Structures are given as structure tokens and as C-alpha cells.
């Protein structure tokens, strides 16, 4: 299990994966908008998306969990 966290505070612009989907390390899974810039958040490891903790349009703080990845 791996928690994917927001690298900075911002608004969730896009969730690019669905629960149950397989992702590979380095793949962009969420886009956060902070200070008028789109920041892609990449999966650090390959795995399966177990849970998505955020919604498009929602606000996240730095270090908040975005996605839980299963091995």
C-alpha cells in the first residue's frame, strides 16, 4: 500500500485514473492547479488504484492523500 500525497496545496483539476485501474510508475494520475499552474502528480510506483480520496474541483492541502495505490 502506498499513499500518494499532494506535493503542494491547490485545487484538483483532473483525476486521470479510476479505482481498480493499473498504473505504472511515473504515470500522471492527478492534476492539481496551484497558483494558476497545472501540476501533474505522478504515481511513484506501479500498482493498482485502490482508492481515490479527492474529487475534481476540491481543494487539497500539501501532504494530503490523493490516491491509495495497492501493490
Amino acid at each position, binding site marked *: 500500500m502506498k499513499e500518494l500525497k499532494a506535493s*503542494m*496545496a*491547490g*485545487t484538483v*483539476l483532473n483525476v486521470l485514473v479510476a479505482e481498480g485501474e493499473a498504473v505504472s510508475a511515473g504515470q500522471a494520475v492527478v492534476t492539481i492547479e*496551484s*497558483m*494558476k*499552474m497545472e*501540476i501533474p502528480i505522478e504515481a511513484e510506483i506501479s500498482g493498482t488504484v485502490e482508492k481515490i480520496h479527492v474529487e475534481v474541483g476540491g*481543494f487539497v492541502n500539501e501532504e494530503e492523500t490523493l490516491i491509495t495505490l495497492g501493490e
Partner: protein
Amino acid sequence: MNKILIANRGEIARRIIRTCNRLGIETVAIHSEADGDLPYVSEATEAVLIGPNPVVQSYLQVDKIIEAAKAHGAEAIHPGYGLLSENAEFARKVKRAGLIFIGPSADIMEKMGDKIESRRTMIQAGVPVVPGTEQGAASLEAALAEAEAIGYPVMLKASAGGGGIGMVRCDDEQALSQQFASVKNRAKAYFGDDVVFLEKFVPNARHIEVQIFGDQHGNIVHLFERNCSVQRRNQKVIEESPSPHLPQEARVRLCEAALKAGQAVGYTNAGTVEFIVDENNDFYFLEMNTRLQVEHPVTEQVTGFDLVEWQINVAKGEKLPPQDSIQSTGHAIEYRIYAEDPKTFFPSPGTLQAIEWGEGARIESGYEQGNSITPFYDPMISKVIITGSDRAEALRKSQNFFNHATIVGVKTNISLFKEFIESQEFASGEYATSVLPTWLEKTKEEQGL
């Protein structure tokens, strides 16, 4: 005009307040929850909490802002730049509410905000435009056919776009096929309109713009040009006037074309006509910005005029001074200090624990020591404007300034300026819009060796 509401925040709100104070005009500031502690809020005569932090709930609340203006007895609204400044619907509603909108008419804003429509207007007026599509590209198939006719590389752009958002360079058919849907989606998300069009990509181009002003009596004047070619992510980082390496003859043609563009739409108040200028000093109309620009201080430094004062005077119905009374002397350079990583350009929100500036600059800052840069708004902290009798002197003063400037608490691009202004690429003045990313790439490689 006795009282103005400023429908903006940060440095530009502060900048407008300063001129209003000098002219004896009272000001009403609006602010979100997060911005309550910023200097512009306490510097205004009155302040109104307009809503929560996201701009859609605060600075873009058209009706609330107009209500606040009326409740506080303001006679006019200054929109600043960004936010509602180019929103025709807002301008229309302000007028309908019996208030003065300090800017051009809603009709002009609408016409120039639609990039396809503005290209059409300029072609009719005899102003050269970048070769491109006359209509929006309805489908990928249509775009591919158009691109074939124009010739690659092409720029794929949102018609409702601006500020460097919603555009991407496509080098071939494959790139255009990959980008088409995403640019359309982004255009829809950011601007609420997914019409896209194509323009030929002009290599080694400079981005040079001309400041114009129109009054309600049909007079249009220009205040010379600004070179804004130092950019990252298609957004400006350094602007200067006069533009280095632009022959006098080309400067005259450029300013005349800008006047023609303004006359074609019967322009009023402050506006900027943006051109791209190629290696032969041939130029093409890019877009017209129907507001005061971020980089307007560069023009103020070389002409000696206060453009906010001009905006207010024009809005009151006063006449502009004649063209021959507007002269440009010396050289001015503006540096935008951003809260961002100087290498990746990723934003860096946080608290400004300490700010120390060098000497000999005009500083326009939205923040002071102790203020926080929040994730809700753009990353610009301050603008540093340095003026010299010529470019060499302005550069010397810039180096001195940045050698003594530090900000603690957030990452900034101060260290980038320190190195970049000493580079041969910038110092020579012979640079195109690719200069900053190219220089960064080169420096990275050299450090890697």
C-alpha cells in the same frame, strides 16, 4: 470622480490606490478571506470582504462587486489586469448599474477577446496577421487539412484564450492529432469556449507590443513599444523598453500599425497591441489586450507618464495629449519576481519570512514581509523596475540590485535573474522568445559536465 472601487488584488490594487491617493480620489478595496492581511486592503480608504478564497467565489463575483461599489458610494470600477478586466459582461453590467468602467467599451472587449474575430478585424484594417485559419477548426480532420496548407510547425490556440494559456506548438501531424482534443478541453475548462484555431509558428520571433491609448473624442496615441520576449511557459518574465535591436524604421512601422489597429475598432482607454516580430523585422498582429498590462511601468519609466492617471482621465471624458508630446527617453527593464522554483518553475506557496531588496529600483509589490503567498492566486510577488540612461546602465544597475536582493520563506526566481542578466544571450539584447528555456537547458548541461 471621488471614489473608485478596485476589482482586483495584490500589487495592481496597491498601484491603483497610490495614483488615486495622489489625485485625491478615495478607494474601495475588495478582498477574499486569505487576502485580508495584504497591504492593499489597509491602504485603501475602505475595504470589503467579498467572499471565500477561490476566485470564482470572490474576485469573479460580478454582481457582488457591483453591489459593493454602489453600497460604498463608488462612482467607478477599475478592474486592474486579469480577473474581470477583459470580461465584457462585467463591463456591461457596471455601466448598466450607472457606474463608470475604467477601460474600453464592452463591445471592443468582446471583439478583441475572440482571437479569430480580432484577426479578421485586423486583416480588414490592413494590419498584418500571422498566417492562419480564418475560421475555428471544427474537427481534427479540418485542423489537419488546414495545417497542411499553412505548413508545420503550427500553433494550436484557443480562440477565447490569452495570457499564454490554451496554446501549444505542433511540429507535425502526429503532434497535432495528439494535442487537438486536449487543447479543446482546456479551452472549454478555462475559457468556457472550445473553439480552436491554427497559426503558423514563426521561428526566432520576438514578442514586441505597443502601448496605445484612446479617448472618447476619437484620439488615439501610442506610447512606444515593449519587448516581452523573455518568457517561461509562454508567460512573460522580463520586459523592456525600448526593444533592443529593433531598427528605428521598424519601430515607427510597428507603432503605426498599432495605431491602425486601435483606430479600426475605435479604441478607448489603455490597450496593448501584441505583435510577433521575425528576424527580418517583419511583424504580425498576435492579439490585443484590452486593459492595463502587468508591464505598464516599463512604459511609465521611459515616457514619464502615470498610465493609471491617464485611464482615470480618459474614463472621465478628458482628452489625451497630442502624439508629438509623448517622448521616450532612457531605458527601463521590468523583472517579475515569482514564488516558484527557479529551475522547474513549479509554484512555491508559503510565508514571506524576510524580504530584502537591492537599491535603485521601483518596486511594485503585492506583499510585505510576514504576508503569505497562498495557492489560490498567481505566483507573482513583486515587480522590480530598473531604469537607466541607456540599456547598459539599466543592466549594470540590475546586476547590482539582484546581488543584494533576497527573499526567505518561499522559493523565488531571484537567483535565476542574478545569472540570466549576466548571460551573453540577454546582455547582447539579441534574443527571441525561446531565450530563457534555451539558456536554462544550456546551463543545466554545463553543470552536468
